[in-house]
């Protein structure tokens, strides 16, 4: 059997190389189909990977608890219009839920920030140290402030890349410099590593972090102490998120003395929710592109079937000879199937090459991110072999069912 397959493949290659133009035109359909699948799937996967990395840049396994809304005489206010979350809520979550690795809180306001003769209007965040860990912030120079800084309401700040660019000369070292917010001087202790755009499109590097206590007492002012803009928490593994969310809801409902019929006065979100919406969108795109590409594979397959039917007719006499010297039906069937698969696999390989180059060009020319995974290439290969097998079956079966006497007499 190995000798049979080897010889049959070589025969198929010889037959195809004899009709190069015909073989090339036949393969064109498969080639275009496979190239389209590879290029489009790569673009789709590139888009998904981009979304995923944006989501990851917000910190992984993160849970965000936002304050609820007011309802005054049936008119509902927006999110955060009422203070329902406090620092003590955060401390309670930390104490009661062992599943949470880190907890933190933050409050933000947009303020004028001044450095010498430059100034910038940007968001100022009063945060607890836990927040920095949860959001995975790292530093290009300097480092984070400590619990001690928070406890003593120290005037220290961490600065994002965009804010640095707006407040400092190029090449000027921000760490150690003093800036002013509402005339309160702050010493910069760390510069944050850039994270780029968030999944929502906002610039994550346009930030200034100061200790929560400092913000509350010296910058923002507060109606009542301990009110936070949002609570943050993280778990060890993403699988733990749903359970952690349930526990947080329970603890907060008890603390807020909510009756069973009352709605939550807070909203819990996870990065999974945020990411899945956008991944869903690009997944739909991938499926659509795949459907379009499949149509061209179908067309390519029909082309192969057509040319194989021609080949069977042309070689009727050869089939008769082979049968006369002892070829069984399965031998003839295999011969034409192998020919079909050889044709489609060569077309598929060329298509893969074109698709990979196409995806690379898309990245270079249009700047779209593309991801070419081994899975996609293997799938494309299997698909093209499958197309040959499927569309070769009818002509091959037709050849195998020829009557040897009539085949030998065929002119």
């Amino acid at each position: 059997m190995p000798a049979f397959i080897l010889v049959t493949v070589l025969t198929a290659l010889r037959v195809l190389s004899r009709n190069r133009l015909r073989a090339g035109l036949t393969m064109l359909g498969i080639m275009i189909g496979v190239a389209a699948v590879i290029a489009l799937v790569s673009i789709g996967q590139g888009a998904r990977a981009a979304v995923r990395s944006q989501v990851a840049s917000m910190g992984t396994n993160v849970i965000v608890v936002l304050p609820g809304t007011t309802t005054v005489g049936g008119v509902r206010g927006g999110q955060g219009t009422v203070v329902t979350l406090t620092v003590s809520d955060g401390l309670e979550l930390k104490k009661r839920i062992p599943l949470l690795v880190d907890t933190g809180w933050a409050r933000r306001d947009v303020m004028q920030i001044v450095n010498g003769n430059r100034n910038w209007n940007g968001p100022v965040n009063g945060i607890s140290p836990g927040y920095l860990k949860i959001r995975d912030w790292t530093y290009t120079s300097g480092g984070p402030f400590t619990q001690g800084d928070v406890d003593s309401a120290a005037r220290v700040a961490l600065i994002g890349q965009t804010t640095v660019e707006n407040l400092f000369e190029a090449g000027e070292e921000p760490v150690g410099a003093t800036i002013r917010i509402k005339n309160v001087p702050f010493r910069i202790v760390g510069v944050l590593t850039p994270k780029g755009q968030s999944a929502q499109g906002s610039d994550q590097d346009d930030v200034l972090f100061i200790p929560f206590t400092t913000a509350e007492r010296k910058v923002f002012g507060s109606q009542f102490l301990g009110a936070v803009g949002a609570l943050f928490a993280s778990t060890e593994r993403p699988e733990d998120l749903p359970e952690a969310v349930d526990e947080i809801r329970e603890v907060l409902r008890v603390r807020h003395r909510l009756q069973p019929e009352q709605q939550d006065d807070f909203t819990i979100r996870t990065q999974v929710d945020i990411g899945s919406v956008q991944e869903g969108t690009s997944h739909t795109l991938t499926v659509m592109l795949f459907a379009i590409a499949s149509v061209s594979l179908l067309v390519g397959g029909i082309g192969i079937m057509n040319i194989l039917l021609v080949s069977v007719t042309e070689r009727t006499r050869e089939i008769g000879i082979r049968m006369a010297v002892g070829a069984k039906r399965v031998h003839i069937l295999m011969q034409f199937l192998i020919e079909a698969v050889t044709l489609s696999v060569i077309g598929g390989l060329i298509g893969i090459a074109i698709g990979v180059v196409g995806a690379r060009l898309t990245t270079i020319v249009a700047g779209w991110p593309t991801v070419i995974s081994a899975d996609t290439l293997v799938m494309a290969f299997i698909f093209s072999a499958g197309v040959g097998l499927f569309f070769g079956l009818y002509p091959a079966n037709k050849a195998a069912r020829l009557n040897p006497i009539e085949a030998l007499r065929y002119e």
Partner: protein
Amino acid sequence: MGSLILCDDLWKVYRVGHVTVQALRGINVAIEPGEFVAVMGASGSGKSTLMNILGCLDQPSRGRYRLDGLDIAGAASDILADIRNRHIGFVFQSFNLIPRTSALENAQLPLFYRGLSLQEQRAQAGSALERVGLAGREHHYPTQLSGGQQQRVAIARALVGSPTIVLADEPTGNLDMESSREILGILARLNRDGMTIIMVTHDSEVAAYASRQLMLQDGRILFDRATTSHVPVMQ
């Protein structure tokens, strides 16, 4: 029972539209190992039909056909393919070599379907080509060979699997006088070496090479006799 070929009341009936054609009407014949039989008759006499049945390419409508002790009538197509592969070597009027395929590969073909290793296929096909005087032409394509040489490749292909019988269907029909003599000489020599040969021909001079002549007419055997003159007369 001892006969190599035993035909017992063979009938072949075709239906062409509403007309039934009786191509064979009760053929009874026994052929012993080592015989050289010429099957003769005008076109439409049923000799091609008989040849197809003897070659296991076709099945009789009625009657029994035993080849080397095997019952052929009623066998499945894959079993027939196997019997053709092992017991029968075909030589056709129009050579029937596979185009754009070397002499050696053409001669290998029966062994290829028998599943032999490539080395064995090549070795045996090479010696078969040697037996028909084509040593050195192994890698020629059919188009590079004369008609006589092509027919010799076909004979090599028929011989290569050491079949029980060689069936030659008008083997000289497409050849000039000299090539015909060459081919018939090879067949006669094979027969002297012990090969059983059945040859279809309408030419009595060609039939003279055989040791026994079977004349068909209208699907029946008209006569079955030993060749009188063993010395062929051919200019």
